[in-house]
């Protein structure tokens, strides 16, 4: 489940960039949505998710 979530997070970046009408090019506070997502939002979520799953010791 965790791996699937990480793969979805990863897949969204090229989709934002390559989808018709380029939704990733929309500027939010001067920076494109694609860069907010690929450089800040997705990395933070992915890291938090991985940490949450790795610190749990299987019983």
């Amino acid at each position, binding site marked *: 489940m965790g791996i699937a979530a990480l793969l979805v997070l990863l897949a969204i970046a090229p989709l934002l960039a390559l989808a018709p009408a380029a939704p990733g090019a929309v500027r939010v506070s001067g920076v494109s949505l694609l860069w907010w997502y690929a450089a800040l939002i997705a990395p933070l979520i992915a890291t938090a998710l991985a940490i949450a799953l790795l610190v*749990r010791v299987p019983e």
Partner: protein
Amino acid sequence: MSALAAVAAWLQPALVTALAFRVAAGTPDAPWLGLAALVAPLVALLAGARPPGRNPVTAIVAAVTVSLVLAADLLVAADAATLLGAARWQGAVLVALATLAIAMWAPSRRLSPSAVAMAAVVLLLGSGAVALAAGAPWTAWHRSGVRPALTFPAQSSWVLGGQRFARATTLRFAEGQRVVTLAAGVYRVVERDAATPIVREWRLAAGDALTLRPGDELSVEAGAHVRFEAGRRVPGAPASGVAWADASARGPRMLPLALGAVVTMLGGALALVPTPRRGRAAAAGPLVLLAATSAALAWGVYAAGVPDLVLGGALPAPLLRLPTAALGAPAGVPLALLTGVALLVLLVAAAVALRERLAAAASEAPELWVAVVVAATAVAVWPLDPWRVLTLALGLAAAAWAPARIATSSAGALAGPIVGGVAFVAVAALPAVAPGAPSWLEALTGYPALVALPLGWLAARAMPPDGQRVAAGG
């Protein structure tokens, strides 16, 4: 194995510098490559335990993969030597000797995880130091994205004393430019202002000048030393800040290339990054990955503000040249030295981790490690593109090493690497065998793992598990 030790094999200087370089250059794939560089090893950390799949084929694939990964790192060292004005081979050989010795030093296995963490933190703090002068990364990104044109600043080293090209390249000029050669060499100019392009080859001495017109192309050899005019557009750079930010080449046609890059990184990580021990200490692995990839992206964004930094093609230029350009020599030189040391530490720690992977897949013999480092050094002496060499290494690992690690039988661990490896080599060799291949094959030849990985994995999984075969045989 701790999570820090597990990610050490992933955080190669070639990966970190290539990310920063590609962001600075405005390559269309930079955003998802940056994200994939983080997510791929996270997936590998979370994936279930994978046996080494030890057999003669995997041993050969592991040795070739590790040689190529090390070669990519040594190519970065060679690029750094070019930036310092030394010969390429001096950088590659010096760093190779250090790598060889430290990876064979017994305590290095214990020290390398903390060294990786420190190097990642230094790279992140280094970008923080640049932020003191250039503002937050998003401010720098916005500033770079609104420039009307990317031109040579008056204080650029390409304008004042000239610079060397790390590898052979072709420059396309959007406006007229007078280029002064500072070293003798052959310079090829393609003039495109006539109906039929005219090719002129000039053998020039130091001090000679070439006058290029808009549309001309200039091909230079690796090591060519030239000087440009201030205020003119940087040849090969995006046309404007908007073109840098939104890369006009991005579009649905790039989807196969994006898929190829992501598959290559995921498969490469599954081969190189083992499953770590779980528990509180495991949090360090993802945090160090986040720090290193964020640092690489931040360095790239800041370097984009100095568009001629990436002109010479030297991958470490954004990390080694930017400090002086952004902070001036008094603060910039020490910072550049610090980032250089951090990259060297990353390389040595990665080499220690790679030697462990090699020992698990092939042999612990010191002779094998020496052979791998010698092979990597031999590759690194040539002015190849480190990013291309790294993606080839990761692609080979994805196609022919990872299948052995997900196989459920010894037959699968043999069949997967053979099928994946043969498919990988066949697709990778296509441009050499059939130079006129159609452009839609670009994604496959650029990232052969896109085809080879599924084939290798299918072959590995198609074989019945060992237990079933014994039962069937019994």
